[in-house]
């Protein structure tokens, strides 16, 4: 898969271990929300999780047998469970549903201890092009 500007900005690394995809965000200063306690910004954590959900669908599209040429976020719900420290952030994704037109993916993110997640999120995607062409 191509490394995109966003994946570079997130410092996103995907590793495949025994059929499972592990995702990692490598933090930088631009990921910090509260500089006093050097906590990661909630929106950055959310962006990482949403991107993880999207990549999980792209990686598994052949196995699923769906065309994922469009994986367009419809909505995104995130619960923040613990403060995210200035440390690498891990994530796993589980595909809850893939149909002809939509997909739903659950993502959990954690730091030191997977049993104590930092955030959990549900992302819904449209698999069809629902937008008119946009001129720059």
């Amino acid at each position, binding site marked *: 898969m*191509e490394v*995109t*500007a*966003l*994946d*570079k*900005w997130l410092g996103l690394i995907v590793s495949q271990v025994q059929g499972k995809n592990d995702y990692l965000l490598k933090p930088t*200063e*631009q*990921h*910090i*929300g*509260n*500089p*006093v*306690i050097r906590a990661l*910004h*909630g*929106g*950055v954590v*959310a*962006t*990482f999780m*949403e*991107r993880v959900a*999207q990549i999980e669908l792209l990686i598994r599209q052949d196995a699923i047998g769906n065309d994922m040429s469009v994986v*367009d*976020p*419809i*909505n*995104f*719900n*995130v*619960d*923040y469970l613990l*403060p995210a420290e200035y440390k690498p952030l891990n994530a796993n994704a589980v595909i809850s549903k893939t149909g002809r037109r939509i997909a739903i993916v659950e993502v959990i993110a954690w730091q030191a201890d997977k049993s104590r997640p930092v955030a959990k999120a549900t992302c819904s995607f449209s698999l069809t092009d629902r*937008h008119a062409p*946009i001129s*720059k």
Partner: protein
Amino acid sequence: MMDKSKQKADFPEPLQAVESFSFDSHPLFKLLDLKVKDMSSEKVSVCATLAEDFEFEENSSLLHTGVFTIILDSVFGFAVLSKLKNLQSIATINLKTEYIVPASSGAQVFCEASCYAICGDIAHVRGEIYDSSKEHVLATATAAFMIGTRGPGLIMQNRGK
């Protein structure tokens, strides 16, 4: 309806603190070129210029919708702070975002948010992101925040130091 000027006098400290916060000193806010356009306890309006760092497809200037979530979470925080009587630390409990139209890099967008209710130590916020003409809604969101979390808040660093 309360008189707006009276309300502002009632809640001066957090409002002033957000208004005087140096966005250029914050690497993420600087990247998004966040600028407060209007701010009261009723509504916060912020403009942002979308950086190409959020492009996520080859040969396309379309941006990942995550950039909207980053802006919404930030501006929602300002909306909560502007409603408080005293500066306190806050934290997002959860955030629900609806993505309607994506944007391209370089686009200017406006985010408007209001903290429409505070019940105990929970603040409820809603808001939208509009395109530069303010005619088209690009994303909407609702969120809940916890008021009075442990540790110093973001805005507090510029105060009393």
